[in-house]
């Protein structure tokens, strides 16, 4: 009986930890851990980042943390597409040439990160997650 209790406690603990980890990952709280190595490799002798792409990721994540004064704001507005750019994207999509004009990856990436999933299931890891780690 005692063994069963211990097993149940461990199972619930693991379950809650994994869900907590996943939610934290999706919320961007683990980004600094995940990107830390990649960014270290990209620093110049004086410690400054060498190339744009990777540092932008790190900087923007840091800005997100600092600027979000409310606990539920986990992604800084600056990371979202500017109103103008969204308008341009949206307006161009109403043309028939849309599929050849714009990259499919852009709307997909935006949509992936900003949509509620189905009430039955959700996509847990997306191709962008694997791409993120490779960058």
């Amino acid at each position, binding site marked *: 009986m005692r063994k069963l209790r211990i*097993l*149940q406690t461990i*199972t*619930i603990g*693991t*379950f809650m930890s*994994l*869900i907590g980890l*996943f*939610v*934290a*990952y*999706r*919320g*961007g709280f683990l980004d600094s851990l995940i990107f830390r190595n990649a960014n270290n490799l990209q620093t110049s002798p004086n410690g400054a980042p060498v190339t744009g792409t990777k540092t932008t990721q790190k900087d923007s994540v840091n800005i997100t943390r600092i600027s979000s004064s*409310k606990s*539920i*704001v*986990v*992604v800084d*507005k600056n*990371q*979202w597409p500017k109103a103008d750019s969204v308008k341009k994207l*949206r307006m161009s*999509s*109403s043309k028939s040439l849309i599929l050849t004009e714009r990259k*499919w990856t852009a*709307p*997909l990436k*935006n*949509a*992936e*990160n*900003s*949509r*509620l*999933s*189905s*009430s*039955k*299931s*959700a*996509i*847990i*890891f*997306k*191709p962008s*997650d*694997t*791409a993120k780690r490779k960058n």
Partner: protein
Amino acid sequence: MQEALQLMIAAGASFIFLSLVFIPMEKVFPAKKEQKIMRKNWALDLCYFLGQYLLWNGLVLIALDYFGTWLDGYITVGFRQSIKSQPLWLQAIEVILLSDFLIYWGHRIQHKVEFLWRFHKVHHSAEHLDWLAAHREHPLDTIYTVGLINLPALLMGFHLEALAILVAFRGIWAIYIHSNVRLSLGPLKYLIGAPELHHWHHDIERDAGNYANISPLMDVIFGTYTCPSKEPERFGIKEDFPKNYVGQMVKPILPKQIWEKLIRKKSK
């Protein structure tokens, strides 16, 4: 080629992660003790899982993106400005409550209207519930559900990134409520839902109740909340329905006569 590889890695990683999260729970707190992990139709649900990751998710997101773009043309700047002038927390509450309201009624209608039920019954055709069975869903049913659930945010121009934690939690909890787990959450079940509630939604009776999305709040308000102390005896649907992936994908989109013709041809 690289994108295809990334898709496969993502699907594999998700499968492993979800197995690690849910299988121990299903073993230690089983709702149906006799149900094995590799139960009947496990492979069929794996097809749905892979289909969702490798094929349909992209289609759903594209459809949703175009729906959002189309909606943008009808929403006035003044309306969006008035929404934006509200505090963020108020916008968030409005989006969540409206989403729950819409998906509750949207889901209830799916069980009533024959045209919608023909797609939705794919999900209900599962005779064994577990975390993998949660993925059994027709892509057109997914578009309908995802469209409805995101409609308030699209209308209001609300960026759900601001609720990333909640969005992620709801996503994984939607899988959990299908898992073969019976573990009382106490009063918390009224806030975030529980497998014991959703299992009753999958009862063999088509109008068994519990239509709400995750939180049973709407069911309590509209009188469809049900939570007997035992598990339902049988899951699934009473209707005759194909038992394979292709059949379940194709039947809902074909007119009845054409489907019957196809079946007759096949049996000859």
